[in-house]
């Protein structure tokens, strides 16, 4: 496509100045936002309204540019070469009378579309500049500096269904193996009570001691009382451990749970 042009540019015949001028135009080829942008730039050199631009002339300018770039061994992206091929085709369409019976759009139609594209791109450039020249937030006008964020007051309401209620009650009732309900307060040891007791005792125990040994004597025989006291003691132990007053260990699953007073400066449990 550019073979005929290349002949005109023999290495020796290009003067240094010409060469520099060409380079100045071409070296910046990366600066062009694609072939359409390059065409627009070249079109501007025609100094005419884009509506009256000579597409034929533009095609020639473009092809010359590509030829120069090649001559200077500048790598051109494929886009530019595709456009060159298309413009060469357009040029031939514009110059030669249409072949009888040939299909497809006429050269004029193609040229008009290219002119439209150039005009549209130029217009978008123009409005883009106008847009950026507008007053901008954070530069020319400002939003509120002290914002009072809307406090999201999260009101939590709790709910339960009748089923929840019944299940809860059933849970409590099954816990005790359906023993007839009696208010046998005497056989329940509260954690508070166990805690109170253990707080005093813990100081006297030397090394690791089974928590079972902390059960009061009169709570050890009756299984119900023993169970309650054990649970209370265990809960109290956890509480004391949480307070950092004792350490708890259990050798294995179901092995005796042992506690001891926490010794200062000794890690581990």
């Amino acid at each position, binding site marked *: 496509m550019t073979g005929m042009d290349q002949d005109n540019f023999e290495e020796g015949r290009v003067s240094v100045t010409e060469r520099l001028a060409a380079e100045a135009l071409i070296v910046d080829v990366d600066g062009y936002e694609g072939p359409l942008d390059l065409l627009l730039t070249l079109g501007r050199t025609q100094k005419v309204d884009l509506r009256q631009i000579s597409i034929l002339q533009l095609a020639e300018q473009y092809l010359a540019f590509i030829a120069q770039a090649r001559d200077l061994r500048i790598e051109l992206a494929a886009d530019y070469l595709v456009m060159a091929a298309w413009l060469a085709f357009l040029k031939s369409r514009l110059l030669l009378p249409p072949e009888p019976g040939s299909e497809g759009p006429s050269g004029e139609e193609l040229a008009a579309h290219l002119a439209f594209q150039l005009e549209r791109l130029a217009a978008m450039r123009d409005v883009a500049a106008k847009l950026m020249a507008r007053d901008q937030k954070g530069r020319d006008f400002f939003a509120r500096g002290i914002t009072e964020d809307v406090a999201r007051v999260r009101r939590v309401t*709790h709910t339960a269904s009748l089923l929840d209620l019944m299940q809860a009650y059933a849970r409590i009732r*099954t816990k005790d193996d*359906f023993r007839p309900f009696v208010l046998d307060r005497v056989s329940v040891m*509260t954690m508070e009570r166990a805690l109170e007791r253990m707080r005093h005792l813990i100081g006297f125990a030397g090394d690791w001691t089974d928590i079972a040994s902390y059960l009061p004597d009169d709570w050890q025989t009756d299984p119900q009382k023993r169970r309650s006291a054990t649970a209370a003691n265990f809960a109290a132990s956890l509480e004391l451990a949480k307070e950092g007053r004792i350490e708890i260990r259990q050798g294995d699953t179901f092995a005796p749970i042992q506690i001891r007073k926490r010794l200062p400066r000794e890690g581990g449990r």
Partner: protein
Amino acid sequence: MADKAPAQEESLFKAPPIAEQERMVEAILFATADPVTLPELAGRMPHGCDPAEALAHLRKRYEGRGVNIVKIGDAWAIRTAPDLGFLMQKETVEVRKLSRAAIETLAIVAYHQPVTRAEIEEIRGVSVSRGTVDQLIEMEWIRFGRRRMTPGRPVTFVVTEGFLDHFGLETARDLPGIKELRAAGLLESRPTPGLGAPTDDDDAADDDQPPLFEDD
């Protein structure tokens, strides 16, 4: 304000009219992230401006408005009028399931009312935290009943109308009994002879406060 502007212009050579200064102070107070002091205002406004005067005008202008010019330490800021603070809240209601402790306590109160705290603890086998009871009272699902005529005269808890309403019960007696719970598969079927609903022996003494329901 407009009538003051010319006088101002004479005395402060080249300074913008006071109405204009007021606009400036307004914009600065609005856009600045922190309260602004008078020297800061003066530093940002054109030479010869009188920010104190402009501020006084502005302050007056915002009197009774939705936002006011307020002094914070040595500095000035625009703030929401105190009476409109409620607009700065957006209430979102989050519904959560009642905790296990609360629902169990509630169930015990419902089935055993009137019931004392000690009794609740005995039935649950663990102590009942104050928070749990308070929460149920706050939800208006339980309330204090009559004091028990036993040593220490402990207060009792009963369920409220609100409770009945929420659970769609006409009376607490409508709560399904143990047999029905079992039939519904809520209790493991392990019939124990003689087991009924709670018997509440202690309540027998409470003849001044009739039990709300009979067991099945």
